């Protein structure tokens, strides 16, 4: 389907954009790396407040993880539809992805709200500051991803797929999978290792 090398200017721009987006993802990875480092330094600095063991529920986090992983899978299905130029399939699966992403976000917000209501806000201790920042930054990325989905899919629904929108959807898909990978690390380091 996409085998002509460099002959087509669209192809060249496409390859360049994807490479650049990979580089961007790498910078985002380092940003998260810094936040993970901060969490690693501060995870015992509870200042007499609750620790990860006291606060987090593993089943809840596992449910979040499953929802996000499922959304990555449906995002892949949507892109299969895009490459087949099947607009209905594309929109359907991206719709499911959006709903899964939104419910992940809702679960995260509800977790945050419960923590704050119980008096365990980010102001309680260095540990909680690092927790809210790390997980919250991931949540902010998810929010951006959801907004991006709306912005890209409304024109696709209206006017159909163009090479440019395919390029942008490919970037969005990379972004979405990347957030999944980051979440796996959050799940492992914050929840799994924290609760035990």
């Amino acid at each position: 389907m996409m085998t002509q090398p460099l002959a087509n200017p669209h192809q060249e721009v496409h390859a360049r954009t994807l490479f650049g987006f990979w580089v961007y993802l790498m910078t985002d990875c380092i940003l998260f790396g810094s936040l993970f480092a901060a969490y690693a330094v501060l995870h015992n600095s509870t200042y007499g407040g609750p620790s990860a063991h006291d606060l987090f529920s593993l089943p809840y986090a596992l449910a979040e993880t499953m929802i996000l992983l499922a959304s990555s899978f449906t995002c892949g299905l949507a892109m299969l539809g895009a490459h087949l130029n099947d607009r209905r399939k594309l929109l359907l699966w991206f719709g499911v992805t959006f709903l899964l992403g939104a419910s992940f976000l809702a679960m995260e917000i509800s977790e945050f709200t419960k923590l704050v209501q119980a008096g365990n806000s980010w102001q309680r201790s260095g540990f909680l500051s690092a927790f809210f920042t790390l997980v919250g930054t991931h949540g902010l990325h998810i929010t951006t991803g959801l907004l991006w989905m709306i912005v890209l899919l409304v024109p696709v629904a209206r006017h159909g797929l163009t090479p440019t929108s395919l390029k942008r959807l490919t970037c969005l898909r990379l972004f979405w999978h990347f957030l999944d990978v980051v979440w796996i690390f959050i799940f492992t380091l914050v929840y799994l290792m924290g609760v035990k």
Partner: protein
Amino acid sequence: MFGNLTLDAFKHDPIEAAAGYSIFLSMILAVALITYFKRWTWLWKEWLTSLDPKRIGVMYIVVALIMLFKGLSDALMIRAQQAFSVGDAWGYLSASHFQQVFTAHGTTMIFFVGMGIVFGMMNLILPLQIGARDVAYPFLNSIGFWLFASGSAYIIISLIVGKFSATGWVAYPPLSGLRYSPNEGVDYWIWSVQIAGIGSLLSGINFLVTIFKMRCPGMTLMKMPVFAWSALGTLALIIFAFPILTATLGMLSLDRLLGMHFFTPDFGGNQMMYVNLIWAWGHPEVYILILPAFGIYSQVVSTFSQKRLFSYESMVWAIIGITFLSFIVWLHHFFTMGAGANVNAFFGIMTMLIAVPTGVKIFNWLFTMVRGRVHFTTPMLWFLGFVVIFSVGGMAGVLMSIAPVDFQVHNSLFLIAHFHSMIIGGVVFGFFAGFTYWFPKIMGFKLNERLGRYAFWCWLIGFLAAFLPLYILGFMGATRRLDHYEAATGWQPLFLVAAVGVGIISLGLGLQILQLIVSIKERKKNTDTTGDPWNGRTLEWSTTSPPPVYNFAVIPTVQTRDPFWEMKQTGASPQQKPKYQDIIMPKNSPLGVLIGGFSFILGFALVWHILWLGVIGLLGILTCFIVRLSEEETEYCIPASAVAKIEAKASKRKK
């Protein structure tokens, strides 16, 4: 309504007010002049909305030069205070104003002069050197520049509205935390650096992709000019280091805005984490600034010695080595943290190691001159001055890499003398060399040589007078950032010499401004009609001066490392009747300026805690991006016939 912003923010002591109002007046004057000459449309269409890297490069350099002027004024104020604030005399600056001045000096010089000239030079030269018509993402380039410009605007506006940070240019907590710096100063610093830093990150991605994906046919990585290699090293560093800065500043501002406890002294915060994080960015940053300068020297030395660069391979490996090593030396900025002997030994040894590739480069440049036909033009003078100052300063750095020695001179003026040797002697001299060297390429006429030489000697002598005393003062126990000291210390004579030195440097800058004016006046006499005024070696000299908007009518194909030199030697002139093709170029876009403007509004709102203004800023940025995503026609076509016309005119001018 206006958050923490009240009328009190506009009240300043007389000296601060004088600075603020003079800037305010010069801005009004500039606006009046542009209006009087009816240049607004021209400015908007030709410059502010331009996506041409040559234009964006010039704008970077203009901002950097304005900020250099500002930063040098700060330096003069610091030196004047320290020369006279002895014993019973308390100088003319209050302690709090003095603290703002040295903070602004460092921030301005590193972020807005250093980074400005790095990206300015890359924009001007990189696409030309690798035989490309444009950068990978022209629109991203514009956003990068405008974020840089709006970051620099906070430094200026803090002179008029409120105060700037008083915590030094790296803002260590707990001093920079909410408890000890409750007012807006640190927030100004955070958002200035944060917004400019995100701009640098975006530009970094852009130029990295440009180098990897847009080189002309035949130019393999090992055939790239050394400036492009040094830029590649810098870009790799930017991509790995700047996200750390973004995260660190983010955490500091969360501490200040939402009452978090990353770096607070209580509630389990950890201040040393900040120091580690900021230097994990900060040390690579030093090399981000110096590597492009190394690249410039490489081009200058080989051009003016009329000889190919000595040992290109070792030069490239030295760049790669420096890029790698610069990530594992950050702890030498705080050996005194008490990390333990083994940790200090590791970082000390790595610091010594990084001097090896740097030394390799110095020798390569010197060997390039051996048996060459050396032309002692102004760029060569800057290079020779650099070798002297940089070598001495570098050895002082190696001295400090020995942890026990560092314990003695930590935070003393010895350190100040060391890093000014590296940054002025290395980066600034390199920039001036490159500025003189590439000026005719970009503007179409050469700079006045005689005034350039005078300026060089002022800078060199001024530098030695200003900073050699600081080495001695450091050994005598003078620490940095003092607004007052006792007469019994015996420091005053040396401080006086240093003050005179900064005066001589200012004279040098004045001569450079004069040089620019004289050169513009005499531009008819110094016009470069050939496109190759220095008998150059690399591709940028093969096109006209100034280059057409598309750089090359026909994309060149290269076989060797010095393709243009080769072309001239073998007499292979470009085809007599080349076949021109339609050229697709990006259209101008106002969205870059608008995104910069809305980012400025957002940051300003965060500094003063004005909610509604922040919402406007954020929505503005989002709207701009959505508008850009929905634009269909972002490019225009220059038909082959128009290209042929432009080229015919250019070759007529050559004859």
